């Protein structure tokens, strides 16, 4: 099956990339933007979806500093 893993910095940890984008948007005329955070997206085909969780814990995310969310994309792959 096809799966998507969303990885983002844990709440409360300084996210300088998010801050930089948050500051850049008003400069381009986009007002009213706040709380911008930037993470990573991993898409993969996996035969055994039960492996997704341990994959995230061991490699795809660093659970000390990142949260992750696994999405199973049905009907593709």
């Amino acid at each position, binding site marked *: 099956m096809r799966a998507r893993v969303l990885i983002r*910095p844990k709440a409360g*940890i*300084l996210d*300088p*990339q998010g801050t*930089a984008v948050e500051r850049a948007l008003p400069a381009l005329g986009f007002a009213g933007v706040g709380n911008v955070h930037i993470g990573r997206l991993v898409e993969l085909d996996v035969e055994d979806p039960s492996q997704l969780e341990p994959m995230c814990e061991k*490699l*795809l995310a*660093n659970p*000390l*500093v990142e949260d992750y969310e696994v999405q199973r994309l049905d009907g593709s792959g």
Partner: protein
Amino acid sequence: MKFGVLQFPGSCDEVDALGAARRVGDAELIWHGERDLRGADAIVVPGGFSYGDYLRAGAIARFSPAMESVIAFAADGGLVLGICNGFQVLCEARLLPGALLGNANLRFTSRQVDLEVVEPETPFTSACAPGELLSIPAKHSSGRYYADAPTLVAMAERGQVVLRYAAGENFNGSVEDIAGVRNEAGNVFGLMPHPEHAVDELIGGSADGLGIFQSMRLALEGARA
């Protein structure tokens, strides 16, 4: 005594680490694909961009065959020094607490920094004086040390913060100005700045980094005596 210096695809400071280690003992390179640590008495995990720093700095390197051996070596009490990318690898391998995140200034930064020796009685700093300032170069884009609050409290109680950036020197935004930490057992140490680049006043402007390598030698000799 002999230092083993790991070499990953993408390492770039292994030769300087080898040169620094050879000022105090023997040293040889160990390719990442090898499991045999060649009888090394101490291991250096050097700086660079192992495996291109893909995913996260150090995330892939920690699974290399050589690192599997280093993890076992550390569990047996062997001395392990991680510099810059090596520090990131040791954190990813959970040999050291915390993690290294992108610099708060969002830039790759290369500059000389002053480091305060917080813990002078470790196998990595015994040649330094308490409170001594070491002038050592730092060059990285992901050097912002982070550990959560309970971890920081536990580390403080156990004297695990070995080096701090001196006032005004914390350019990467590290929590509590932390520049170098050791594990609970005290035999694994990592720092972002590069002591191996500061071993000769003629070409580095400072030889303050040599103390780290001398301390490791002293610790090994003491253990044998």
